[in-house]
């Protein structure tokens, strides 16, 4: 009997949002519009892949992207995926000052309106947190955060001002953008994922895979999704089970 192994498949839904945070969307062309690939087939293709694999994933939605992908947001819910929050529109939380609470609240409320349920989880990788971020997330009713990279397993957020919340750390080595932003080949990216993923599962039985639907830093392209499928099948063959962040957080909180 081996220890249980749990894999979270998470998707940071990013189209042109990161670029549109600093430039008008209508000024985004060519190299500044790589993100449009997410709308031009990338996101739909990732959902196709997850359906093929029979995996329920957690999609972290900035409101900016949820508004642009309403059909695919609904499709993802029909497919059984979790919709969690990734803030509003790629703002830098650490510079919002007194507006931070209002921005986070607006983001939560709008996503809840679009999905029909308040999001249980939050992730933000576009900027630093402020000292207020975790306490604000707690006030807004979040049960988990998944922005940190400081552990190999979930842990309680009490010391960060998030009493009753759990952190589900992601792993930068088990993330597509880490490797593809360096323009490595997909075989190299795959080799990195295997190295990181196998060792994480052996250490604490927990691995968080993070994907993006773009073509530049993400896995929206069919050739790359084939590599992701190979990775998921490898984890499955090693005895891992797949769960959503929401379900794992609920399970972790129950045990406490």
């Amino acid at each position, binding site marked *: 009997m081996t220890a249980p192994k749990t894999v979270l498949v998470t998707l940071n839904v990013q189209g042109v949002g990161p670029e549109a945070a600093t430039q008008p969307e209508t000024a985004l062309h060519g190299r500044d519009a790589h993100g449009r690939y997410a709308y031009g087939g990338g996101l739909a293709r990732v959902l196709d892949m997850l359906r093929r694999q029979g995996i329920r994933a957690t999609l972290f939605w900035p409101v900016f992207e949820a508004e642009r992908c309403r059909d695919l947001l609904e499709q993802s819910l029909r497919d059984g995926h979790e919709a969690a929050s990734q803030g509003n529109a790629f703002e830098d939380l650490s510079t919002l000052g007194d507006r931070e609470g209002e921005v986070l609240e607006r983001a939560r409320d709008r996503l809840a309106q679009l999905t029909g349920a308040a999001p249980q989880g939050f992730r933000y990788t576009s900027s630093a947190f402020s000292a207020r971020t975790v306490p604000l997330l707690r006030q807004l009713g979040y049960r988990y955060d998944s922005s940190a990279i400081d552990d190999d397993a979930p842990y309680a957020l009490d010391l960060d001002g998030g009493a009753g919340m759990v952190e589900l750390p992601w792993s930068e080595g088990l993330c597509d953008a880490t490797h593809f932003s*360096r323009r490595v080949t997909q075989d190299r990216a795959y080799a990195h994922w295997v190295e990181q993923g196998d060792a994480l599962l052996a250490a604490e039985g927990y691995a968080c895979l993070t994907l993006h639907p773009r073509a530049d830093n993400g896995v929206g392209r069919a050739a790359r999704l084939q590599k992701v499928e190979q990775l998921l099948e490898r984890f499955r063959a090693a005895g891992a089970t797949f769960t959503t962040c929401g379900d794992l957080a609920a399970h972790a909180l129950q045990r406490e």
Partner: protein
Amino acid sequence: MQRIPYGAAVRADDNPWLPLDRELRAQGLRAASAAPVRAVVCVTVHVDGPAVEVGRKQFPAGPYTAGRYAIRRGVPRHLEILARHRMAATFFACGYDVEHYPAPFHAILAAGHEIAAHGYLHEAWDLGDEEPSLLAKTHRIIQQELGVTPVGWCSPSGRKSHRTLPALRELGYCYDASEKDQDRPYLADGDAGFIMLPNNTVSLDDYPFYFSGHSLAAEAYDNWVQEFEALRQAEGYVHLTVHPKAAGGSGTPARAAALDRFLGHVAAQPDVHVMTLEALARHCLAHPDHWRRA
């Protein structure tokens, strides 16, 4: 064109290239016994000669001669490879290179390839109000030096502005190869006379793998084959970009050999048609309803 789901077999009737297949047969360009065209491959060569260094205000001699490598070695090598595989390609030319080094461009045309426009000094910066006049300048240089009229453009470095498409339309261009947002051609908004032929400057390109990813040529080759095979199961639009320059490009022997092997792989597939971007643009614009945005 309907979205093609990932991972599902495409029914023969949904193959987006059947109209092209019929056209090629009607013109006697495809043998009666040949398999139906399932994928189109466009080979684009970004010549990027000394224009790149001059554009960066580097004097193109001594160490700043990666672009000169394209003129001296890379272009002849790529022409030889393309001729051996009997493939017509699209060569993107900077106006400065055509002006100062016309010979390789005459050789490109003599070999039956297309010349398209690629900026004057491979401008990798925002051109502001100067942009339309620079596009016109390179256009005139290609016409005057080479006696051909380009109909396509690819942004050097991928930068574009709201001025770009109107200026290209004014010059009579019918395609832009600078967007990266779809795996298929699509009509520019509200314009049945202009087609976007997206490129893939991430994983069907040499420069990112070699310059940023520090890949071996064998690794780049493997990735190109994986992209080609995945696209062939889906949209079937394969837009390859290579650079005949040194330092990051595919001009040098080891990397030109990887290009050669990849084109050999493509040439060996019975259901593939290799064509220039101009030929593809003309095909798409003859059937505009097939290429509207989904």
